Each structure stands twice: as structure tokens, then as C-alpha cells.
């Protein structure tokens, strides 16, 4: 690292109470006091949990979000109202509050035995975070899915109906394939949001990447190294996802439709 920058940071850290901060970039290869491996390997296991959590939450968000998004575009009134209420609820309560509700409140509301069983589930915090984050993100996916379907020309639905397709078939073969192509870019950014939001899970004890960086800082006092590593890993993860999605997006292009040359 460049010397002036180091000096600057050392001074800043000193101002924050870290007098005589000792730089040690080799810390990653040292064993943790818990003897669970090197700091690097604990960060990697945190990354694994982050990825797992993001994928599971995203699956929930995508499936439920698609369902809610679709029912909001049906011709009848009640599904639309139900979908709107769902979205308002999950979108407008802060994610952290939702997570606390799922973790601390919901088990208390369950029948006693079931609640007790939930509380001592081995991966309880992980499952809770997966559901909490998944439902929170599902409201955002739903908004995108509805918007995508509504952006299609009205005649597409009519043409499907006119050749005799049922409503389900019209969605399955016409509206959804088109809508998902239209909303692919915003869905990509919602997936990136999901990855970023996994960090909130540390508040209920999930040992994901940020939690691992924090515990590294607590054990080793190398706060700057720990969070630099976390930052770099998050950025790399986002970069990989972005590049992958770009590639997938190009494969979805149709000549004469979504940006495809005729």
C-alpha cells in the first residue's frame, strides 16, 4: 500500500482511538484464536454463507415475487388488491425490523411446542434470514414483474386469448417470456441488492461475510485489513454477478425485439 495513504489512515485511526495502529497484511494467514483455521478461511466460509443466503433468499423472492407480480395483472379485482397489500406490507417495513419480527416475535406466536422447536433449530438464524430477506425482496420482484407485464402491448394478451389459449397458457407462453426479458436488467440489480442485504443477517447471528470480518477485527484488532477484505470480496462478488448477467442478457436478445437488431 502507498506510504502516504498508510500514514493518513494511521492518523485517522489514531484519531478514532487506535493509537499506534500496527499494519499487518499477513494477518489473513494467521490462525484464529478459535483454532478454526486462518482468518482467510473464516472469511471464505463467511463468503460461502453470504452466497448461500443470497441464493436461497433470491429463490424465494423470485418465486413468490413472480406469483404476486402476476396476480396484480389479472383482470379481476381481488387478486390485484391482495397483491398490492402484500407489496405495501413487505416493502414499507424496514428489513431489519422484519428480520427481528421473524426471529424474535414469530416463534413466540407459534403454538408452544412448535415455537420451541423453531428456536432450537440448528440453522435457525440462517433459515430465518433466508425467509425474511426472501419475502422482503419478493415485494420488489413483484413490482418489477407487474411492471414488465403491463409494459407489453395490450394486443399480445388479446392475440393469445384469440387463438384459444387459456389465461394460464397466455402467461406461460407469451406474457411471461416477454416480460422477464423486459425486466432482466432491473431484476439483476434486485439480485445484487439481495446480496448486499444479506449483511443484515449478522444481527440475528448468521455468520456471513460481514459477521466474519467483524469477528476478525475483534480477535485481531486489525480492523482496517478485515473490512478492506470484506469490501473487496463484496465488490468482486458483485462484479462476477454483473458480468454473468450481462452475458445471460445477451443470450436472451431477440432480433427485432429487446434491443436486438432486426
Amino acid at each position, binding site marked *: 500500500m502507498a506510504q502516504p495513504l498508510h500514514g493518513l489512515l494511521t492518523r485517522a485511526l489514531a484519531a478514532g482511538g487506535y493509537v499506534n495502529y500496527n499494519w499487518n497484511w499477513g494477518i489473513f494467514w494467521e490462525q484464529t484464536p478459535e483454532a478454526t483455521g486462518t482468518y482467510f478461511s473464516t472469511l471464505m466460509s463467511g463468503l460461502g454463507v453470504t452466497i448461500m443466503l443470497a441464493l436461497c433468499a433470491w429463490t424465494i423472492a423470485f418465486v413468490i415475487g413472480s406469483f404476486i407480480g402476476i396476480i396484480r395483472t389479472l383482470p379481476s379485482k381481488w387478486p390485484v388488491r391482495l397483491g398490492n397489500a402484500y407489496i405495501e406490507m413487505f416493502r414499507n417495513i424496514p428489513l431489519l425490523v422484519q428480520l427481528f419480527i421473524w426471529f424474535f416475535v414469530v416463534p413466540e406466536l407459534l403454538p408452544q411446542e412448535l415455537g420451541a422447536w423453531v428456536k432450537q433449530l440448528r440453522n435457525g438464524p440462517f433459515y430465518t434470514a433466508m425467509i425474511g430477506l426472501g419475502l422482503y425482496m419478493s415485494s420488489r420482484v413483484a413490482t418489477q414483474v407487474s411492471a414488465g407485464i403491463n409494459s407489453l402491448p395490450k394486443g399480445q394478451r388479446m392475440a393469445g386469448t384469440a*387463438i384459444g389459449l387459456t389465461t394460464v397458457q397466455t402467461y406461460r407462453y407469451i406474457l411471461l417470456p416477454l416480460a422477464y426479458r423486459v425486466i432482466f436488467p432491473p431484476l439483476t440489480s434486485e439480485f445484487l441488492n439481495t446480496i448486499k442485504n444479506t449483511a443484515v443477517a449478522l444481527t440475528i447471528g448468521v455468520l456471513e461475510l460481514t459477521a466474519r470480518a467483524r469477528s476478525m477485527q475483534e480477535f485481531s484488532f486489525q480492523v482496517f485489513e478485515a473490512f478492506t477484505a470484506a469490501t473487496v470480496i463484496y465488490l468482486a462478488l458483485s462484479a462476477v454477478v454483473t458480468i454473468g448477467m450481462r452475458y445471460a442478457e445477451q443470450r436472451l436478445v431477440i*432480433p427485432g425485439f429487446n434491443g436486438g437488431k432486426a
Partner: protein
Amino acid sequence: MPMITIDNVSKWYNPTFQVLKNCTTSVDKGEVVVVCGPSGSGKSTLIKTVNALEPVQEGTITVDGLSVTTMKKDLPKLRSRVGMVFQHFELFPHLRIVENLCLGQTKVLGRSEDSARAKAMKMLERVGLTAHAEKYPGQLSGGQQQRVAIARALVMDPICMLFDEPTSALDPEMINEVLDVMVELAKEGMTMMVVTHEMGFAKKVANRVIFMDAGEIVEDAQKDDFFGSPRSERAQQFLSKILAH
């Protein structure tokens, strides 16, 4: 024998706006009926009620003896037998031309992939677009897309065809290639209800002309009577305006 009967049909878009007012007419088997009238007079709405794309509040509509207005469960099957062609083609942009022609055949009629494809290719040949089978709709001209749309309706072996201004979104030089296909269809005896302002087409193949204004069927006459001496003043005005073009 009437293929389509429209009996005393009224429709409201909201309690204060009546878009169809007691419309009554019928289309016999093999007959070609042209529907014309000023913009907003309810032509599209009327033609869409025939395959229940638009529901109606009053009156009854039958197709081939079956009541469209009371039917529920079998509507998709009935719709598959009523071909419909839209102003803006409405081909499915993510499906290749041949796939556009196969979707209804396989999913609604339950035909095998192979027989659907064979039928699709035959129909593409008929509209002169075999070479474009593997392209996407966005790669075709407007006239070609509309011919594909007609073929997409024909592969379902329709008992009648509905056209809603099939040429009005086309550049002038492409209108005839579409009209030619329609003329041929009419000559083969297809029952057709056509919303159009192409009076040349009407004169050539129509049996009857219906003139609508403000949601009413103002005039429903044999072609020669309509063009010779329209009874209503509104139709006269409309005709003189449109024929002046």
C-alpha cells in the same frame, strides 16, 4: 344459415359510456361483411365481442349455433375456431414465424409438433413466406407480418375470420399484398367479418356492408345498395369523405 348472429347487443365501458347500442346483425356462412364507420364508432368493440374478447352486458351472440355470451368453460376452444387478425399484427415477438404458427395448434388443438409444423409450412407457402419461417417477427416488414398473422389464424382451421383494420397500420405499398390474401380467402368461401376502410376491397368481395356510428348499426345493406344509394345521411357523408381520398 347464419354463422354469426349478433342480437340486440349493448355494451357499456362504464355506467355512463355506452359503446354499443342495441346492435343486431348476422353473417351467413360463406358471407363477407365489411364493417365501416368513423373512428370511435365501436367497430373494433363489436368485432371483438364475437369471440368474447370483449364481454357484453346485454344481448346474445352466437357463433356456429353456440352462444358466446353465456359460454364460459369452452370459450378457449370456440375462440380457437374463430380466426382473428389485428391492426397491429400482434405476432409473438419472441417466437420464430413457424413457432408463431405452431403455438395454438399444439397447445389448444393438441396436434403433434410434427403435424403442426407441416401445417404451418403449408400455410406459409400459401401466403408466400416460406423463406421466412425461421425468422423472428421483428425481422419482417409490416405487410409480411400481417400475412403471417393471417396464416396463424388459418392453421387453426377456423370456421370464420374476424379482421380489425388489417391494413390500416401498413405503408401504402404493402396494403395490396395483404388484401390479395384476403380476397383469395373470400373467394374460397371463408366467412369473414372485416372492419376496414378499404372500399376497393369492399366493392370487390363484400356481400354486405355495415355502417356504424356512435355505437349504433346505422346501415346494414347489400353491397350494391350501400354504394349505390346509402339510406342514411351519416353513411352518405362518410362515404363521400372516404371515397374522395
